[in-house]
């Protein structure tokens, strides 16, 4: 509950206590600490005084004198004094907050509590000042000081518990921020000096010893070690780091010692970017929350109207003003707009933090919301299902070829060097391995044909390197040249493709010279991850530019039944749209975030499989920091758990108010004959928002299911 402004006081509004890009002791954190200590003080005072009031009111409640209780404590004047102290000392911030809000035409939690408690206090005044006169008029002279004090104390207790729980919702971010050590050992003019991390500049060389945490992002220049990036990427296997490898700040160095050159500092580090992305996600709202927001705007004024109406109706029925006042107070103090307001943001806070813990960065709350309802998951092949590091496994000369291998290979490398295709890189690497240091001929008129291959002129020869499919189709329609494929090439290609190799044919001056088989085996856990996704009820589809046979062979290895092959990169987005148009529910795309950006953007949820060092993958809704396909399943499971949690929270908050308010208004009385004591109403309210936050905190215990054993 807790919409309680006031100095050093709680507030239900600040759902984001303690996150901030700066170190954990940010202003928000300090504010939460101050709020808690202020609340603790108020609560202690209220508990003590309310205890005295309740003891003093016992004889009155039981209707007989109790010798153990001193008479002065039971007197109406001391009850008035004690209750006033509780209201001013413990409830001061609530009353001043309500007043400030009133002047701004706003009504909130404070308005309800202050009015309810204030009215109970006011209603007891006549019985304190002139009890005899009231009795002479035939009116009851009852005191409700203990009601006012007990309600206020319960409200404070609820606020205290809620503020404490709220502090835990941003724990994940705080933990991430604490990953960065405060200092780094930097080489300066040949001497090692220990500097605050904020003083380290890009280009500095930093030494990391065994057991230490890497302070910033950089590139290893000397030494080697195994480092653990689990806290950042969720990937638990330690990674070997050698000169040339990238290291990220926050990773734990295990055994060896190494030096690295700092490349990114401050807000540019991976850690800072993760924190910023999580923070942004926490600042967004879900679709369902937009609805709840509409309700909260109207909520308090409507509750006040219901309370007044309850008073009027009960006065007309009973003629008893004091009784009617009790109904009025009950309605005011049972309503809890804060439970409604807290229901979604707290779940989102905890879930995005939990995601970050598992190496999953959700771009916004809507991504978190949509991922749970996905029906179809499209996986890019290269780099997603496979490791994305293709290698040439076969090099077959063809019968019609005339060139020597020693001439063909440098020519091949020279042309492929110009291409950015992953297969071309594999070819270049293969040639470098076969003929190290061989000179490369000059290349002219280089041209890449998307989804097909490349053409170029080398030493007067027309060179074409590309998929056999291209040649089968007879070259480009506008090239005016037909290249016949030989039965030999066809047969070899079929054989290689059946072994899940991509094939690259080399044609020089219209003659098929060679066929290369390039293999890119599936990731080790790909089959288990696909099985896990199917267990979640998702239809898994593979999308690739590769030839159909190669694609199907890979798909069979990992257990995917549906393959969309031979799709040019530019057409991937269109394929996603086609799947969306089939109306089988939301479609997700999983890709590397760079080549697949349009398809990721077209999908209802785009998952980018990151490299673990760069989260600047803007097109994606979810970024998987570890290059593990299993992360997609974890993201979907987390999303489902979050949605269930939000639904529970909203259901609870709505149901609580929808059921509680009529009961407090006495609607059940004609049927059951009992009325709700305002103190019970206060207790119910105090714990409704605590239970919402506590329920959201259950998400901290989220654990993804272990992957099934792949078939």
């Amino acid at each position: 509950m807790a919409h309680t402004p006031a100095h050093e006081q709680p507030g239900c509004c600040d759902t984001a206590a303690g996150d901030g890009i700066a170190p954990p002791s940010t202003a928000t954190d300090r504010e939460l600490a101050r709020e808690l200590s202020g609340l603790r003080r108020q609560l202690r005072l209220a508990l003590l005084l309310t205890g005295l009031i309740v003891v003093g009111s016992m004889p009155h409640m039981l209707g007989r004198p109790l010798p153990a209780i001193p008479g002065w404590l039971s007197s109406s004047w001391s009850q008035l004094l004690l209750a006033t102290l509780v209201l001013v000392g413990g409830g001061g911030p609530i009353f001043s907050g309500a007043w400030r809000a009133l002047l701004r035409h706003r009504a909130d939690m404070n308005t309800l509590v202050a009015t309810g408690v204030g009215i109970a206090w006011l209603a007891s005044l006549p019985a304190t000042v002139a009890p005899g006169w009231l009795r002479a008029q035939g009116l009851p002279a009852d005191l409700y000081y203990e009601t006012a004090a007990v309600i206020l104390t319960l409200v404070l207790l609820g606020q205290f518990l809620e503020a404490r729980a709220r502090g835990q919702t941003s724990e994940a971010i705080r933990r991430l921020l604490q990953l960065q050590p405060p200092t780094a050992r930097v080489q300066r003019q040949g001497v090692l000096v220990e500097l605050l991390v904020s003083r380290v500049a890009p280009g500095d060389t930093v030494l990391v010893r065994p057991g230490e945490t890497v302070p910033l992002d950089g590139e290893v220049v000397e030494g080697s070690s195994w480092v653990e990036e689990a806290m950042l990427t969720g990937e638990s296997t330690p990674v070997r780091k050698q000169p040339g490898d990238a290291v990220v700040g926050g990773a734990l160095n295990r055994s060896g010692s190494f030096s690295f050159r700092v490349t990114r500092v401050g807000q540019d580090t991976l850690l800072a970017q993760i924190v910023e992305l999580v923070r942004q996600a926490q600042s967004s709202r879900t679709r369902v929350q937009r609805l709840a927001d509409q309700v909260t705007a109207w909520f308090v004024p409507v509750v006040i109207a219901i309370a007044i109406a309850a008073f009027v109706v009960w006065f007309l029925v009973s003629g008893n003003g004091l009784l009617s006042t009790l109904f009025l107070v009950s309605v005011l103090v049972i309503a809890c707009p804060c439970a409604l307001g807290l229901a979604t943001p707290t779940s989102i806070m905890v879930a995005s933090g939990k995601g970050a813990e598992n190496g999953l960065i959700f771009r916004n709350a809507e991504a978190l919301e949509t991922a749970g309802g996905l029906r179809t998951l499209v996986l890019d092949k290269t780099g997603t299902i496979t490791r994305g590091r293709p290698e040439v496994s076969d090099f077959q000369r063809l019968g019609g070829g005339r060139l020597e291998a020693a001439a063909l290979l440098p020519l091949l490398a020279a042309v492929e060097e110009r291409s950015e295709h992953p297969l071309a890189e594999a070819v270049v690497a293969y040639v470098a391995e076969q003929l190290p240091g061989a000179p490369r001929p000059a290349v002219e008129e280089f041209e890449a044909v998307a989804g097909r291959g490349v053409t170029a002129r080398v030493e007067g020869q027309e060179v074409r390197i590309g998929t056999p499919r291209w040649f089968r189709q007879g070259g480009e329609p506008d090239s005016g040249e037909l290249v016949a494929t030989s039965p030999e090439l066809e047969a070899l290609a079929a054989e290689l493709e059946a072994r899940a190799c991509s094939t690259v044919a080399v044609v020089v001056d219209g003659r098929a010279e060679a066929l290369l088989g390039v293999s890119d085996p599936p990731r080790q856990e790909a089959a288990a991850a696909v099985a896990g996704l199917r267990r979640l009820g998702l239809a898994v589809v593979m999308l690739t530019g590769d030839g159909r046979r190669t694609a199907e062979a890979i798909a069979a290895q990992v257990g995917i039944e549906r393959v969309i092959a031979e799709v040019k990169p530019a057409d991937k987005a269109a394929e996603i749209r086609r799947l969306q148009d089939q109306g089988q529910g939301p479609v997700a795309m999983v890709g590397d975030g760079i080549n697949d950006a349009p398809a990721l953007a077209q999908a209802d949820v785009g998952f980018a499989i990151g490299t673990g060092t760069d989260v600047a993958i803007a097109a994606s809704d979810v970024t998987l920091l570890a290059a593990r396909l299993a992360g997609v399943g974890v993201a979907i499971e987390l999303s489902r758990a979050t949605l269930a949690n939000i639904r529970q929270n909203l259901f609870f908050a709505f149901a609580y108010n929808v059921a509680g308010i009529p009961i407090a208004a006495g609607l059940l009385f004609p049927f059951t004959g009992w009325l709700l004591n305002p103190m019970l109403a206060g207790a119910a309210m105090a714990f409704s928002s605590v239970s919402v936050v506590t329920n959201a905190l259950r998400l901290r215990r989220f654990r993804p299911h272990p992957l099934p054993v792949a078939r």
Partner: protein
Amino acid sequence: MTPMEVGDPAWRTIAQPAALKALVALAGLGLIALELWWFLGRHGETGTAAAEGGVQTVRITVQGGYAPERVRLRSGQPIRLVFHRLDPSSCVARVIVPDLQRSLDLPLNGEASIDLPPLDPGLYPFHCGMAMVRGELEVVSD
């Protein structure tokens, strides 16, 4: 703290003159109308932005709510919102512009500003972390 029974001392029917009952009913209705008008009617002043170096700049005071609560801005121009927080409540320690996924921590008795890109015409709400204290940016085309 048990539910009150009919036997509870508070439960007592008292005969009241019809005129008093009518008066209470009328006063109750009047109070409801007044309260709904006060809280739900449109009272907040609409603020406009001052142009400072090509940036539409709005100063918003935070005390018991946002003043101004509604700000009219022109589309296609960058925006700077400067919040001056006087309210000690930690409720308003954070302001969120959900549609733009931006949030800002507000220091007590200090100013903090948030820069927004040029926006398309439309309504962009901003609120505290729990969406109880609210304001709205109304972006209109030139």
